[in-house]
């Protein structure tokens, strides 16, 4: 029996009003690209000036151990901090993003399920992980997961970084879920009806008509969350995962923990993260602009 309420979609289901445009671009309300917008708004020349400023700031602190010494120390550590530290941050972010995206897509589509109970569960899970502090999620995963699991008699250890990936993928999943839900619901319900009257089933409609229409619009917010995730990977240092920040601290310790080291060493981390995330943010905003124009 046909029921007009399209589960999870009918939120704005006024159908034959002439004012209905093909899309409801602001269906998501708040500025979901805030971080990227902010990051991308930094003009490139500021970045250049800041880089110049960095040694100067370090110089201001020096008494007997000079800036030069600190930078020489940094120079020695750069390969280690970069290729064993930062590369690992990227690895964690890529893994967490992959898992988070897949799980988030499923969770997002569950928001438009025909079954009410599935919609409610999806809503609850999304809200739970979207609104929990990331660090709390990380610690819960750290403590809740065993150090090793037994599969068919073989013991497989679960290293800390795997837990970190799982912990970080949870909030990503929830936020991707929101992106998918928002995108699907921004397609007017008239599209569902048109498809229905052409004998498309719900699943066919979703995959062949609704998702292709809103796929592009999901890319900028998705990239935005990737940048956020990458910037959040240093949280893993608190779990003892060997990544950039953790190694930076270790390196400074090896150099005698001098206060002069702080600015060059953490400054270098900042440069790395910025260098990685800044282009992503610029690209996100460029894509956002392009898709907003075209549609």
């Amino acid at each position, binding site marked *: 029996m046909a029921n007009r309420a399209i589960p999870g979609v009918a939120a704005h289901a006024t159908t034959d009003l002439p004012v209905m445009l093909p899309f409801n671009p602001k269906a998501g309300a708040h500025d979901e690209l805030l971080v990227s917008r902010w990051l991308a708004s930094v003009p490139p020349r500021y970045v250049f000036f800041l880089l110049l400023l960095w040694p100067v700031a370090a110089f201001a602190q020096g008494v007997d151990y000079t800036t030069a010494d600190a930078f020489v120390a940094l120079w020695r550590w750069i390969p280690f901090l970069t290729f064993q530290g930062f590369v690992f941050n990227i690895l964690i972010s890529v893994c967490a993003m992959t898992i988070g995206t897949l799980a988030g897509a499923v969770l997002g589509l569950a928001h438009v399920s025909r079954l009410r109970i599935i919609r409610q569960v999806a809503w609850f899970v999304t809200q739970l992980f979207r609104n929990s502090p990331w660090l709390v999620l990380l610690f819960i995963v750290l403590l809740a997961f065993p150090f090793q699991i037994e599969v068919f008699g073989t013991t497989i250890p679960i290293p800390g970084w795997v837990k970190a990936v799982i912990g970080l993928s949870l909030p990503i999943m929830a936020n991707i879920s929101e992106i998918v839900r928002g995108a699907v619901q921004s397609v007017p319900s008239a599209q569902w009806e048109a498809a*229905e*009257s052409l004998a498309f089933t719900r699943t066919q409609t979703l995959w062949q008509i609704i998702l292709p229409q809103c796929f592009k619009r999901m890319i900028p917010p998705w990239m935005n969350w990737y940048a956020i995730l990458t910037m959040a990977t240093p949280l893993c240092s608190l779990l003892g995962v060997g990544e950039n920040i953790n190694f930076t601290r270790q390196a400074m310790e090896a150099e005698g923990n001098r206060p002069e080291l702080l600015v060059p060493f953490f400054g270098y981390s900042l440069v790395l993260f910025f260098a990685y995330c800044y282009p992503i943010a610029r690209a996100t905003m460029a894509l956002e602009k392009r898709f907003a124009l075209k*549609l």
Partner: protein
Amino acid sequence: MSTWTEDQPIVSIKNVRKAFGTLEVLKGVSMDIMKGEVVCIIGPSGSGKSTLIRCVNALNDIQGGSITVEGQEVHTENLDKLALRKKVGMVFQQYNLFPHKTALENIMMAPVKVLREDKADVKERARELLKKVRLYDKEDSYPGELSGGQQQRVAIARSLAMRPDVMLFDEVTAALDPETVKEVLVTIKDLAADGMTCILVTHEMGFARELADHIYFTDRGVIVEHGPPDTFFDNAKDPRTKEFLDQIL
């Protein structure tokens, strides 16, 4: 399995009641439509015209009465939706074309994806349909690149690609500017001339008078008056009909 024959109504609406929550929109509506007939439903805004025709292809459910299409009950638990929607095509006021597909793809999509017909055959048919709605040169245009009237004609072709026996039109010219209204009406006229059974909700009185075999006037969820166009327009009996016609003509 259907025992329907062409001397029986192709669409039979019997005492249909429909409510949205506590709002009663249809309060016992009946009409019989024979194959090849063109029926116009007119009436003031909010009188339930859209709701009624949406019940015919099960976009809306009903609370009472019955609707049959070619003898098949529409509002039953074991409705074969695919079969119903193959038989009944629908065109909307807002065209509702798929914006990410070209005109030709819009037309081909349902036969290929839903009916799993051969793509080459469907393409040929889609081209013919575009020709029929006088848009053969627009097959590669996206809906966003077409005018309202052109979009609406593509929407009609899209519906026809399913080879329906009955077409429902819900104020399909209401969103168009006056010049383009005509091109869509001409398309519908062609269809009617080919013997398609058409149920139209419309405000185009001249068109209704010229084309319709039967006119129904609805108000507040009931059919107030109905009859062949000449009788209906010239000798309306009910005061509500008269008032409506006075306002609109």
